[in-house]
């Protein structure tokens, strides 16, 4: 991030307001770091780029935090944060002009949540579903990542993707249906 001498909005506030804003931002960071990182990780597929994307997402969030808080009307800011990460991820892929295909050897394995035996039994299915997920359109894949990795509800996903609630419900339904069909074709 060398040379990033940017227009950081909160720096222009008076000290007391800035301290309050920083405290609120710290809380936002603490509450949602895992969400943003999980989204970034599943989106870009490796730890290194996920860290970069997470850091950039929070830097952007910090820059616009004051305004976002004022305009949020008390609504949760998680969809806004994820939307920032979503847009950064789109730029990331646009910049590379293609979706990455080469496996990583330096990234850590997906952390285990269940017992080893259960994972061994389900691994082939998990591998398949991850492959099929990668073949979905951007919005369908992202909506499923938001739903299942982050536990976001339809309304939150709608706000993160800039869609209506109804369109998001249909998007998720179709994404799951498409995965089911493709899994059945295997």
């Amino acid at each position, binding site marked *: 991030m060398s040379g*990033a*001498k940017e227009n950081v909005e909160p720096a222009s506030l008076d000290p007391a307001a800035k301290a309050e804003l920083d405290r609120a931002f710290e809380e936002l960071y603490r509450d949602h770091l895992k969400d943003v*990182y999980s989204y970034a990780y599943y989106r870009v*597929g*490796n730890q290194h*780029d996920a*860290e970069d994307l997470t850091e950039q997402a929070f830097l952007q969030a910090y820059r616009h935090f004051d305004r976002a808080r004022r305009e949020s009307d008390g609504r949760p800011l998680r969809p806004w944060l994820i939307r920032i990460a979503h847009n950064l991820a789109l730029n990331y892929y646009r910049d590379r002009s293609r979706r990455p295909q*080469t496996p990583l050897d330096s990234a850590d394995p997906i952390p285990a949540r269940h017992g080893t035996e259960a994972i061994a039994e389900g691994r082939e299915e998990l591998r398949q579903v*991850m492959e099929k997920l990668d073949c979905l359109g951007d919005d369908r894949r992202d909506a499923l990542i938001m739903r299942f990795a982050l536990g976001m509800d339809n309304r939150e996903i709608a706000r993160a993707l800039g869609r209506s609630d109804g369109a998001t419900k249909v998007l998720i339904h179709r994404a799951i249906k498409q995965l089911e069909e493709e899994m059945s074709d295997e």
Partner: protein
Amino acid sequence: MSEASERLTGSTWDVERLLGDALRPIEPPERLSGRFEDTLSAVTQAAAEELSSWAEELSESELRSLRDPRNWVRPVVAASAGGVATGALVLLEIRRRSRHQARGGLRSLAGRVRP
């Protein structure tokens, strides 16, 4: 019945359950918070220094001129341009790093879930 075989109901996959298992929340590495704090502190410090040195360089007449709202458009445009330039720097940094590492998306994650 094993967990894996339960995932099949007739000919239909229980995709929602598979997704729930596959897309687990990922704990961020501990170093990330420290790294973010360092970057944020460097960025805000740099911005404060820029503002401060900019103000010191202004003459009294320039300061008077700045108080005139008719002259506010230029600084606003300059500040916006600064923000855009910063965004570009940030993207360049990501691009530079990504060039060094050809890395995979979900497909590579899938590849690492070995049977």
